[in-house]
């Protein structure tokens, strides 16, 4: 289950060592991404790719905007 968060909570989670995942296209990721973000495109979200994440740490997922 996802919990919706805002910018301040995202900052706190990042500062606390959370993992960050950008789900946009490769080109958008390369242009700019949140510090330390890893890239898993939305269409590649799967159990296998989820296995790349550390299950003991929080994960923050983001897109471009609310659209």
């Amino acid at each position, binding site marked *: *289950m*996802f*919990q*919706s*968060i*805002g*910018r301040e*909570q*995202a*900052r706190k*989670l990042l500062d606390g060592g*959370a993992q960050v995942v*950008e789900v*946009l296209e490769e080109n*958008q*990721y*390369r*242009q*700019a*991404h*949140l*510090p*330390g*973000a890893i890239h898993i495109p939305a269409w590649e979200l799967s159990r296998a790719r989820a296995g790349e994440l550390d299950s003991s740490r*929080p*994960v*923050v*997922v*983001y*897109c*471009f*905007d*609310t659209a």
Partner: protein
Amino acid sequence: MYDYVDGKSDWMAYGLPVEGQSGPFAGGVVTAAATCRVEETVAQVRATVGATRDAVVVVDATGLVLGLLSPEALAGPGEDQVLDVMAVVPSTVRPSVEVSSLVSSEAERVLVTSSDGRLIGQVVTADLSSGPPHDHAAEGPPHDHAAEDAQMDALFEETMSIVRERFGDSDPSPEELRALLRERLIAAGRTPEQADQFLTEMDDDEESS
């Protein structure tokens, strides 16, 4: 799992750090801007900001940009209320704007605000380093992709006509076709390395299509 619903655009609109190939962004080159409040008089603002020749940004208690007090207004009668002499609705940019887009700005300074209009700072356009002038002449003529595409189409057609001539109604194997195309590329002036690179790119295009 957390979903940062406002996403990257929100993050960048607040000038927070990002990594990647774009930038630098306005949020990374902002400097502090002198501010005042609407309820102040010009004399009070002068006493606060000193002998500045820059415009002073009028903000509310939360930092929301309300207007701009020009140097002329700042030099005017001390009893004037800021509210009465300020210019309203100054133009602003977000911190996610690339610095390169501000270099050619006619404004001496550009206000940078968050997406909800709160002042982050200002970018003094004269301070932006645009680097040495780009020498287009040193690059040679611009790369003409249309001409190259037309040339490759012609080369491919020529190759296919040779294929028809050599193989008749039987289809050549991919290896034979590849070898023939490589031969034609080299005959057309490509080096063997360029020909191999072209064929590799062609394979990649086919795989991705």
